[in-house]
């Protein structure tokens, strides 16, 4: 029997790590992720896990240790945020290209500078092209559920890629919520035992990881990574289906909330989706056909499925918790990608971008309501006044 506990998102993830019982965890503390590895280190100290816990001197070393351990044949996990992820960046690419199915809890925080410890998505957007699978989570529950599924997704023989599981720092990372915690045995059974195909520690079959790879083969290895990303989508759906059958929570590539008959909708990731759902409910009570599409899978980007799910709308408003400086209209990365996805799949509807919540700026229901009112106005007039709005920034 599962049980309900009052847990922070960090504690929910740490508890998931305890249940998964990875062979190796290498991590360095950084706010707002610290509570995850700190809690997990207590599990190590108390003998609740068999994990080799490697305390390193930096995130660059943390990810390096993870790559080494994964190549050795271990099931490996880590956690980080913002500047820690930035320091890992070189090895983040190496983890993906060496096909190490490491699972990382990424508690999203704004990148410096000026220095800030509060949530936005500038950190994860920095690794969007790195070859990691990226899952986003609205709540601590989802971060926990995604973490458990991430192990299966990354280790799948057709995939073999690292997976980052994101949630917003503080808002869900430190926020206490009601989390359904599954039975240890059920989680262990669901993730199974990792059977690495090419472990370095198989001494009878010596092999090399990470050799020099020039113009003659590097390109072929990149092509293989594309294939793994292509393979990931059906695997993610298959793992989600099995997860639903066992734990009773339904996950897809994204969540469509009151979207089927909607006329206007927002597209949003992580915790703000929760706030936006209450706004959708309020507008529905007024008779407004509002809906929401919540990003779950950011990499690989389910462009075709999302374009289909949004094709019937009059207007789409994307909410971006980061800016791609110097990109078209200085918009956010989510908007740019969604705009491309809609165009590529022949969906010709007005799309606007609302950058919000940078550096942890609160985003309140009335601000999201304004986004919907704008969208309704565009639906009525057919005219987009501003393609990109920096929501609630002071003039």
């Amino acid at each position, binding site marked *: 029997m599962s049980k309900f506990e009052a847990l922070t998102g960090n504690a929910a993830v740490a508890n998931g790590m305890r249940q998964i019982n990875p062979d190796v965890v290498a991590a360095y503390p950084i706010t707002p992720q610290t509570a995850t590895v700190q809690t997990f280190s207590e599990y190590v100290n108390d003998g609740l896990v068999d994990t080799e816990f490697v305390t390193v001197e930096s995130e660059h070393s943390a990810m390096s240790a993870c790559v080494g351990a994964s190549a050795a044949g271990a099931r490996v996990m880590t956690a980080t945020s913002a500047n820690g992820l930035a320091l890992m960046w070189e090895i983040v690419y190496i983890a993906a*290209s*060496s*096909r*190490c199915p490491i699972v990382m809890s990424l508690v999203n925080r704004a990148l410096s500078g000026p220095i800030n410890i509060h949530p936005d998505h500038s950190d994860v957007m920095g690794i969007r092209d790195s070859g990691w699978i990226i899952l986003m989570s609205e709540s601590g529950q989802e971060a926990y559920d995604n973490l458990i599924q991430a192990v299966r997704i990354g280790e799948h023989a057709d995939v*073999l890629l690292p997976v980052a599981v994101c949630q917003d720092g503080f808002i869900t990372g430190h926020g206490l919520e009601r989390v359904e915690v599954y039975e240890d045995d059920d989680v262990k059974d669901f993730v199974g035992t990792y059977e690495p195909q*090419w472990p370095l520690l198989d001494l009878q*079959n*010596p*092999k*090399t*990881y*990470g*050799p020099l*790879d020039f113009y*003659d*083969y*590097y390109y*072929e*290895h990149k*092509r*293989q990574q594309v*294939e*793994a990303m292509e393979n990931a989508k059906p695997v993610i759906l298959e793992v989600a289906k099995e997860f639903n059958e066992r734990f009773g929570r339904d996950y897809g590539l994204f969540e469509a909330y009151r979207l089927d008959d909607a006329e206007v909708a927002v597209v949003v990731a992580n915790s703000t989706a929760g706030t936006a759902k209450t706004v959708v409910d309020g507008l529905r009570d007024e008779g407004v056909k509002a809906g929401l599409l919540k990003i779950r899978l950011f990499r690989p980007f389910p462009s075709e499925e999302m374009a289909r799910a949004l094709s019937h709308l009059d207007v789409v408003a994307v909410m971006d918790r980061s800016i791609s400086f110097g990109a078209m209209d200085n918009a956010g990365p989510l908007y740019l990608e969604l705009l491309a996805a809609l165009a590529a799949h022949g969906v010709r509807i007005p799309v606007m971008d609302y950058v919000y919540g940078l550096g942890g700026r609160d985003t309140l229901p009335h601000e999201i309501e304004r986004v919907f009112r704008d969208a309704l106005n565009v639906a009525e007039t057919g005219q987009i006044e501003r393609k990109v709005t920096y929501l609630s920034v002071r003039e």
Partner: protein
Amino acid sequence: MSELKGWKEIPIGGMILEAGNAVEYKTGDWRAFRPVFGEAECINCFQCWLNCPDSSILVDAENEEMVGFDLEHCKGCGICAAVCPVNARVIKKADEELKKDDPRLCIRMLEEGKFQEVGNE
């Protein structure tokens, strides 16, 4: 260069699953300098064989002789010439600095371009 394979035919992630297959990777075309024998007679001390980082000194084990260079793998680093004790004993004039392609040496390092022009002298 061995035959190039497609992305479906090779191990993922650049992994090398077959131990010792570096021999299939021909690195001789990286070379800017080529080791060749000069006039001084080799004493078969095997210092070059011992120090070569690319296992490119060919020896006749039965007759205990150094017989040449594996030019498919030699990168032309010149360590063989640098450690050669015969090279060190070549008689030279006062204050003379021997060039590394001096014909009097045992192992000479010849510029590939020059070698192509004149052949093995």
